[in-house]
């Protein structure tokens, strides 16, 4: 924490010389060695370190991949395959980078849910949270840009859908769309600018990560009790070796999962269509983004109705961006003074509901919105016919024999007739997505503001070191 005295003492002459000119070793020492850290951080708190590793892995593999990649529409697809076939260990680099994107998002979601649960966004850590949201936004942009680069079918058509969203913005939409693509449609120029920006954004992320860590080290870590550090001696331990070893252990566990995907199922998190070279003339049957963007995709598609002058398409875009924008407002939406949900019995229920809603939104995003989840009744058959006199009619049947007999009858009369399916009403993915979208926004805009005023929290411990002793509290502490 900023309040604590630096314990760094330069030993060698060179260290003393450097310390009086650029105290960088002192900075590192105070930030990562002697930084007082609450002693009760659980494994959910190791994901910050895991994310730092993810970023490093992506940047390092990405730099090497860029040495071999060709960003032109004619060669991009083959150059990615060439990396995997002819570059020594190129297959490893490429799979680590591709799986790494998924792992990065997996970790960031856990990290964000942890922040939501333990109230890490509340005073005095609002700026820390805001910077985290900026990183998340940059990550999504980077992932989206990167997905374009292999120039597969999903790359092209996914990008088409996302860029098309900007077209929904009134007045400037069309111009903005053209500006982003660098032309009237996605082409070579788009691929090249996406590559350029995909290389740039990770370094911007790295920059914001530094600010994020700085903003963390001013107020110090939150912790599972949400109670601030009161006594540095009793409540904290130095970051090194206590948390370097604990984070290190968690990082290696994470890497085991990471490696299992890379070595045994490197393509399972992606979409097979992306191994078909991009073809603007053939649109895939189902365009879906990568799994980590599916909940937002579900929110986008859940809006199928106009409100006043705002079209459904624009409204969908507003809701999708709103679902991320609302995270920025969170520190001022949650009115509760109690940080940790451990001591908020009602809010906790809603929190787990929110986690479930987010996951189910992912399921909706992956599914065809019109597919039924719970069918209400059976599909029927309808025979539509037009008689010779030009009179239209429709008859509905449950069984095929009856429908076919009726059709033959009408055909024999000289009418035209055809059978089609009359879908039974059902509870469909679109309905589930709409309910979940409503809950997503209600959680931030209604539940958290309201609960903070009405909920009676459980008693928080007076200090971290008291909570740590937990059930052993009866035993004399010293």
């Amino acid at each position, binding site marked *: 924490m900023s309040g604590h005295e630096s314990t760094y003492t330069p030993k060698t002459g060179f260290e003393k010389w450097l310390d009086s000119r650029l105290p960088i070793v002192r900075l590192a020492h105070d930030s990562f060695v002697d930084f007082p850290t609450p*002693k009760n951080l659980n494994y959910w708190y190791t994901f910050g370190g895991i994310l730092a590793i993810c970023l490093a892995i992506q940047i390092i593999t990405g730099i090497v991949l860029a040495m071999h990649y060709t960003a032109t529409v004619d060669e991009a697809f083959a150059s990615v395959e060439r990396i*995997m076939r002819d570059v020594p260990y190129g297959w490893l680099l490429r799979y680590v980078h591709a799986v790494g994107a998924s792992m990065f998002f997996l970790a960031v979601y856990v990290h964000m849910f942890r922040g939501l649960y333990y109230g890490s966004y509340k005073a005095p850590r609002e700026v820390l949270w805001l910077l985290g949201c900026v990183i998340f936004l940059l990550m999504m942009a980077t992932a989206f840009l990167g997905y374009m680069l292999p120039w597969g079918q999903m790359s092209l058509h996914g990008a088409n859908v996302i860029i098309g969203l900007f077209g929904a913005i009134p007045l400037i939409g069309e111009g903005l769309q053209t500006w982003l693509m660098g032309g009237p449609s996605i082409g070579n120029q788009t691929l090249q600018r996406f590559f350029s920006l995909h290389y740039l954004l990770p370094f911007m992320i790295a920059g914001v990560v530094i600010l994020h860590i700085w903003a963390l080290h001013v107020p110090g870590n939150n912790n599972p009790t949400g109670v601030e550090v009161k006594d540095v001696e009793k409540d904290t331990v130095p970051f090194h070796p206590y948390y370097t070893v604990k984070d290190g252990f968690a990082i290696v566990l994470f*890497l085991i999962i990471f490696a299992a995907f890379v070595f045994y199922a490197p393509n399972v998190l992606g979409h097979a269509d992306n191994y078909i070279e991009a073809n603007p003339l053939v649109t895939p049957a189902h365009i879906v983004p990568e799994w980590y963007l*599916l909940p937002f995709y579900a929110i986008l598609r859940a809006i199928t109705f106009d409100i006043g002058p705002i079209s459904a398409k624009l409204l969908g875009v507003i809701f999708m961006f709103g679902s991320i924008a609302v995270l920025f407002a969170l520190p001022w939406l949650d009115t509760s003074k109690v940080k940790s949900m451990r001591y908020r019995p009602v809010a906790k229920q809603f929190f787990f509901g929110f986690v479930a809603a987010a*996951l*189910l939104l992912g399921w909706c995003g*992956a599914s065809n919105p019109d597919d039924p989840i719970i069918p209400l009744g059976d599909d029927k058959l309808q025979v539509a016919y037009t008689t010779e006199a030009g009179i239209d009619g429709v008859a509905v049947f449950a069984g095929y024999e009856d429908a076919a007999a009726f059709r033959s009858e009408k055909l024999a009369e000289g009418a035209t007739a055809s059978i089609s399916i009359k879908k039974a009403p059902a509870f469909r993915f679109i309905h589930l997505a709409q309910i979940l979208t409503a809950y997503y926004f209600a959680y931030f805009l209604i539940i958290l503001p309201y609960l903070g005023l009405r909920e009676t929290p459980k008693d928080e411990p007076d200090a971290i070191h008291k909570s740590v002793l937990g059930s052993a509290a009866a035993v004399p502490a010293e």
Partner: protein
Amino acid sequence: MKLYRLLSAGLGALALTLTAHAAGGAKHPHPPKEGWSFAGPLGQFDMASVQRGYQVYREVCSSCHSMKLLSYRNLGEPGGPFYDAMYPNANDNPLVKQFAMEDEILSETPDEYGDYQYRPARPSDAFRSPYPNEEAARAANGGAYPPDLSVITKARGHGADGDGANYVYSLLSGYPGFDEILFGEDENGEPYDYFEFDDGEEQGQLIQPIGQYYNPYMAGDVSAYWDGDPRHTPKGGFLAMGPQLMPGRVEYMDGTEATVEQMAIDVAQFLQWAGDPKQVQRKSLALPALIYLVILAGLLWFSYQRIWRKVGH
């Protein structure tokens, strides 16, 4: 609370496994009865089968399908079907040289007069493509474009081990038999082919459009040609490629009997190798890497226990 957590974890796993892929209208491809030798964490290719598969590709598939991402030398590289330890440089492998030499390709570099000449391929050349461009391929195939097969096994399925090979195998061996094709005549006296379905709820007739072939494993929609209950349209689709693997279509050099099943297995295995030639190398690196990580995790765990032993937390 515990229940809630379990529920959330379960839903998480569900959401992850269900990503993408709405079930298309095709039958689910399946592996051959014996399974695939390359599947599983310790899977290895049955190299004799991959070699036979190359023969099937060369003698059957390659007359329409290109494999632009493959070069002859790949066949003789470590992990390839014709790798020979005597020739660490695949370009020297006589078998590979022979395969290359048998194909005539248009040279990419001009001769001394500036003309492009046909010449026998060298191991470093890419596989000969049957057509100079997509237009020529379409013109020769009734408007349909035979897809490049280089990464076809990665471009089908859900990315699980063997998905793509299952698809190739099921499609090639899954055409209805010739005896199942029935012949009808429409009101103008024009003949047409059709299939009779009488399987549970799939009852009716499926007309096979001219120049198209029905296959239950092909992704597509046959409803426009289905005379029967539209709620129970047969699975599958039409494709412009008819059944190619007739018994004895190739004569295997190793004497294996060339049944449809055998050729489908072999060519699927060859394409599985071709789609990701480093997959065996990948899997053989997996175990050492994981063992290393597990040992490291163990050491860190004990260090963690020791360092924290005096701190209540």
